[in-house]
């Protein structure tokens, strides 16, 4: 038998092989259009400790994109802390924010220029602080000047969360997202 992932046609997979699949979709790709926020509930469970959110989006104006963790349908709005570094042309800037009402994950696009964010979430469903990193490729109104935005942060409240809200600070956002659990 071929060694996974080199599967062969008709091969019967064992539980042990299936249990080694690294990423498991916990929220199938969901499209959204011209909305101020997006919610995904019952996605963080005891099945996985860590997750990744893949977000493809545009924003209608100059509002940046953030997230809040949710428990039983209610978004948490305190205790977010993050540090960012931003590469724009030849300029690099950094900033830090503490005790915020949400966690920043991406910059604006200001029009129909797609941007993307890959957000790793560590332990959101544990009754401990959640940490995260976001790698954001950003198009602020043009594809000719992509911006590299990297954010690392945490939500310091020691609460178990089962969902997430993604928000844009002004105007609306359009795009799609998928959430995966990392198999251990």
């Amino acid at each position, binding site marked *: 038998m071929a060694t996974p992932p080199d599967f062969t046609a008709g091969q019967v997979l064992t539980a042990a092989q299936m249990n080694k699949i690294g990423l498991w979709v916990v929220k199938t790709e969901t499209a*959204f259009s011209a909305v*101020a*926020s997006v919610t995904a509930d019952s996605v963080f469970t005891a099945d996985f400790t860590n997750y990744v959110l893949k977000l493809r989006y545009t924003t209608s104006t*100059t509002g940046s994109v953030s997230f809040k963790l949710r428990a039983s349908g209610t978004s948490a709005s305190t205790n977010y802390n993050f540090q960012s570094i931003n590469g724009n042309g030849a300029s690099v800037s950094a900033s830090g924010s503490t005790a915020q009402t949400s966690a920043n994950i991406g910059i604006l696009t200001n029009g129909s220029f797609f941007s993307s964010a890959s957000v790793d979430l560590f332990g959101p469903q544990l009754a401990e602080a959640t940490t995260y990193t976001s790698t954001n490729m950003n198009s602020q109104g043009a594809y000719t000047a992509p911006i590299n935005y990297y954010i690392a942060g945490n939500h310091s409240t020691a609460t178990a969360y089962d969902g997430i809200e993604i*928000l844009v*600070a002004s105007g609306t956002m359009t795009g799609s997202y998928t959430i995966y659990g990392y198999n251990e």
Partner: protein
Amino acid sequence: MSTPIVNDNGVNREMTADEAAAYHAWAAKQAALIEQAQQAAADKAAARAAVIAKLSLTADEAAALLG
């Protein structure tokens, strides 16, 4: 002000009054933070320009010295 739309687990709907109030409060805070950051960046640029002017540097000289 129109009621914001939320994509609630895949389904678009208008936010409830409580959700909309929370959203608008959050958005206002975000706008204030951006304004503060922009002002800080403008202040920093002005301070840099003042130093460059005091030293009588050209733009290329300033770039070579300060990056």
